[in-house]
């Protein structure tokens, strides 16, 4: 049963921030697409006094890209819009691929990319990809704006770096460097299900098109937050990336994962999956980097 609340539906960002500031000490929640929040509200687990509905703020729904500034996605852009945007072909196709496997078409049609990130679910799909792409999140408050690297945004299970009164407004993805390839995949049993374990890997090669100049390996659903496997990255950085090196990186990444056991899989199995996923997705990223 959803408890009654006072409903506020600002139509501009400014109005929204004003309202958020006004109610920041009150029991309030922000709703965008609400694909996660409404489930909790229906179970009576979340019962805010004020519900601030930002879904109608059209100025936060956009996708822009240019070579210099990179890609900018408004926080209220729907998953489906990201998935279908032709802009993604300019080096961000991994975002489109990720979105395509996120839940169902109906959920993607209504749910927003910003809402997903702010939910802070370690099994969410966008976060690992954005971290691999070295994205930055623009956060606005009534008085100031700030940016947070995507990898620092999720703090704990369902906890984010958003302060009271703040909204996530934009996702900024830098233009990919030359010879960069990024890939993402998730392991699950039912195709459209949440990740049992997911991984995103971004590889940038040196001009010899063989040696790893930079790499970002991100694990999803393998720790309380999406997490970079930095030791595994170190295995690859500066070296010629081979299959066996990727396998080694996978093994190292597995030691960096801190998964839990649940009904979908045991912690041990998740660790094994991390090994395989990192090696496989690394291989895919490498192949893309070579072509990029």
């Amino acid at each position, binding site marked *: 049963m959803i408890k009654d609340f006072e409903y506020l539906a600002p139509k501009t960002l400014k109005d929204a921030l004003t309202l958020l500031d006004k109610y920041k000490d009150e029991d309030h929640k922000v709703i965008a697409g609400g694909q996660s*929040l409404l489930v*909790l509200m229906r*179970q009576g*687990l979340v019962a805010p006094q004020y519900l601030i509905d930002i879904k109608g703020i059209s100025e936060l729904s956009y996708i822009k890209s240019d070579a210099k500034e990179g890609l900018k996605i408004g926080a209220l852009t729907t998953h489906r819009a990201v998935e279908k945007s032709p802009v993604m072909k300019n080096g961000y196709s991994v975002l489109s691929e990720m979105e395509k496997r996120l839940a169902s078409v109906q959920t993607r049609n209504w749910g927003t990319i910003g809402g997903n990130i702010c*939910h802070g679910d370690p*099994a969410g799909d966008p976060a690992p990809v954005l971290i691999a792409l070295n994205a930055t999140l623009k956060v606005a408050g009534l008085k100031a704006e700030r940016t947070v690297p995507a990898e620092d945004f999720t703090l704990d*299970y*369902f906890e984010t770096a958003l302060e009271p009164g703040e909204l996530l407004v934009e996702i900024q993805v830098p233009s990919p460097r030359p010879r960069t390839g990024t890939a993402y995949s998730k392991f699950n049993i039912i195709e459209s299900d949440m990740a049992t374990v997911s991984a995103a890997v971004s590889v940038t090669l040196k001009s010899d098109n063989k040696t790893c100049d930079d790499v970002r390996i991100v694990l999803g659903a393998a720790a309380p937050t999406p997490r970079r496997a930095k030791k595994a990255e170190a295995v690859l950085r500066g070296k010629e990336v081979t299959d066996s090196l990727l396998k080694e990186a996978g093994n190292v990444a597995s030691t960096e994962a801190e998964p*839990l056991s*649940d009904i979908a899989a045991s912690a041990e199995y998740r660790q094994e999956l991390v090994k395989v996923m990192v090696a496989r997705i690394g291989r895919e990223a490498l192949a893309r980097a070579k072509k990029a």
Partner: protein
Amino acid sequence: MLLEGKFTLKAPIKEVWDFLLQPGTLVSCIPGAERMEAVDDKTWEGTIKQKVGPISVKLNFTQSFTEADPPKHLKAVGRGSAAGGAGTFSQETTVDLSEIGQGETEVSYTSNVSLVGRLATFGERIMRAKVKSVGEEFTSNLQKKLKEQLG
């Protein structure tokens, strides 16, 4: 869901025991504990506030000691419910202390926590994660406090 573990403290067993049995100890170690009062020598009552992402829960609970063999063995059973009918929880904890050397005590514990109601069914995954992290935080706090006070 079962939590278990052990750790050692540089303190005599009797001191560890007395420390454990002060309501104040638990308030300061349980993350989110707001209140803990002794109703009688076997029963405590308390309130804990917990937050998992968007969900905040206030749990009122009663803890009673069902077995006590000072200064070695303690068993406590707790039951509680979340304000607003979101669910109930129960736990059964056994703590065993043993002297392993001069002024050194080993504390081993097992705690079986069970959640029922809406809280529990909202994603087993999330609650399990939460209970685990609360459990870990609790033991690390406890060790820290014990070390501060006794060590």
